[in-house]
């Protein structure tokens, strides 16, 4: 075995390097982008703007965190946009019964939707894409039902402690940002340092093997989707606290945003590899692009989506080429 290992050492290092590049590619782009924006736009580097970027990123970040887990496991969750909106409405509705209800109600309901997703996916073998597509519809329908077809918007009382979750600041930085950071830290530990996390990787890498290796595949899947639902609910409740109301028009297309930031962050859509830090980078990149478009300020609104689409493409292509060159 000495000869092969002599052969293999550099190739392993190469593979690792490619992996790093693929993941850190987005980080490199992010840093470059920030540097360019810093010099090109005098207002970009202001503390206010940066604080704002962080705050704006935090909601999508929380949703994308759940999506990261799901995608690493080889699945996908299209329901997060609707569940996010539903979570917001439920939080605003619950806030009239106090802080605890405002937090628990969306958490419980959104987790339940995730749980049902997970059960259907794990126990019946239906494709995650289609199951969560159905619950995208379901959650939106439920939202409309509890707001009498969207005509009622529940408001959060001005004095409610619940508002602090969205509008409060700690050390000058918004509470949602802190919450997102804590969740990401926990998510990182969960993914890298627990058996559950290892099972998630195994599931995405080779599901059949995971079954034969005796992993609790069904339980892991159910937990995953529940987690994703719950995190979308958390994002929803933070948003409700931030906006002081349960806005009904929220979250349309958010699932696609979440998927693209996860992928930009270097998580393989085929599953089996990925990091939560990458996702964070992906979210920040997206926010950066939006901010830069605003700073430029002269872009026709129709061009803006063209630019976003092109940007997504460029990042993915660059990642791909880097990974290929190195392997």
């Amino acid at each position, binding site marked *: 075995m000495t000869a092969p290992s002599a052969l293999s050492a550099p190739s392993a290092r190469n593979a690792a390097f490619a992996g790093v590049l693929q993941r850190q590619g987005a980080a490199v782009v992010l840093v470059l982008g920030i540097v360019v924006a810093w010099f090109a736009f005098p*207002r970009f580097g*202001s503390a*206010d*703007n940066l604080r*704002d*970027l962080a705050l*704006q990123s935090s*909601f*999508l970040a929380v949703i994308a965190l759940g999506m990261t887990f799901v995608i690493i496991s080889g699945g996908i969750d299209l329901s997060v946009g609707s569940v996010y909106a539903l979570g917001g409405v439920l939080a605003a509705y619950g806030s009239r019964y106090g802080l605890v209800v405002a937090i628990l109600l969306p958490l419980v309901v959104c987790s339940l939707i995730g749980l049902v997703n997970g059960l259907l996916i794990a126990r019946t073998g239906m494709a995650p894409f289609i199951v969560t597509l159905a619950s995208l519809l379901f959650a939106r329908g439920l*939202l*409309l039902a509890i*707001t009498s*077809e*969207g*005509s009622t*918007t529940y*408001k959060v009382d001005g004095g409610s402690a619940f508002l602090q979750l*969205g*509008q409060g600041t700690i050390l000058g930085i918004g509470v949602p940002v802190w919450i997102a950071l804590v969740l990401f830290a926990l998510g990182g530990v969960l993914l890298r340092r627990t058996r559950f996390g290892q099972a998630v990787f195994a599931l995405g890498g080779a599901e059949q093997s995971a079954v034969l290796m005796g992993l609790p595949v069904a339980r892991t899947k159910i937990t995953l989707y529940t987690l994703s639902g719950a995190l979308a609910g958390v994002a929803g409740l933070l*948003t409700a606290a*931030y*906006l*002081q*109301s*349960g*806005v*009904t*028009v*929220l979250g*349309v*297309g958010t699932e696609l945003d979440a998927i693209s930031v996860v992928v930009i962050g270097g998580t393989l859509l085929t599953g089996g590899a990925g990091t939560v830090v990458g996702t964070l980078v992906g979210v920040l990149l997206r*926010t950066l692009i*939006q*901010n830069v478009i*605003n*700073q430029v*300020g002269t872009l*026709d*609104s*129709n061009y*803006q*989506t063209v630019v976003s689409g092109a940007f997504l493409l460029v990042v993915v292509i660059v990642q791909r080429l880097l990974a290929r060159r190195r392997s």
Partner: protein
Amino acid sequence: ACTSREETPAAQSSGSGPAASAASTAPTSGGCTLTQTGYPKIDPKTAIIGFSQSEKEANPFRIAETQSIRDEAAKLGIPADHLLTTNAQSDLNKQISDIKSLLDRGAQLLVVAPLNSDGLQPALDAAKAKKVPVVTVDRKVTSQPCTDYLTFIGSDFVKQGQRAAQEMARVTGGSGKVAILLGSSGNNVTTDRTQGFKDELAKTSGLSVVAEQTGDFDRSKGQAVMEQLIQSHPDLTAVYAENDEMGIGAVNALRTAGKTPGKDVKVVSVDGTRNAVQLIADGSYNAVIESNPRFGPLAFQTLQQFEDGQPIPASIVISDDSYDETNAAQKVGNAY
């Protein structure tokens, strides 16, 4: 296509356009003044003005709205680089960050077309913190006027619904079966236009609503839904569409089904786009209640008045015209 876009503002900026008139519902107690807010005095003509649009400029209303703001700014001699614009692409969170970034880039006066009545509070708070007055146009926000924002300029959507119902009663002669093509679910405009319409329609006992289905403010969905309704309610005599696009879709559907829109089945909608008004003139449509998008002149006028120290009412209702068979042919030039 390009010419129609330029025609419209020209027609109204001549002064005789419908936007110039405003029936203000000023509270008797005088309204909001500069001293009351404690904001610094700024000259709108030299100030940096931010405009936050909510949706892509991809429908007549939004196109006319943005254009009206730009034209008025140009007319007042405000340099182009003093008018900052953003577009939230129908994403509420983005609109908040848009407004904050406008503030960050030094906007001293803000005109905002809110995506939603609720949920802009953080952006308004940010403006308040920087002592920047905010005028919201076209959609009222549910925050406090004068403290959270300066004033609202726009239509009363409930009223539009009521006026549509009155038109409906008129064109149907007070009896018949009505279908409603609703706007997008969850949207306040939909809610208000439905509520106003239904409440008012209830006063006419001969009219009953037999179906209300969403057409998402979209012509093709309006058409598809209408086609279904024509089949399942052959006795349908009227349609109320919550925007012109769905109304035009309904006209398409009626034509395909071999019915004569405007005669067999009456069509009433809200908006005032050129295509719909033209249909009235052609006899295939019955009435359109205008929802006036030309906020530019009023918005700048209001800001000027505010900076001049005059009291500003909590809401300024822009006057909405209406089009029917009697005036459509002459007024089609006013439509956007």
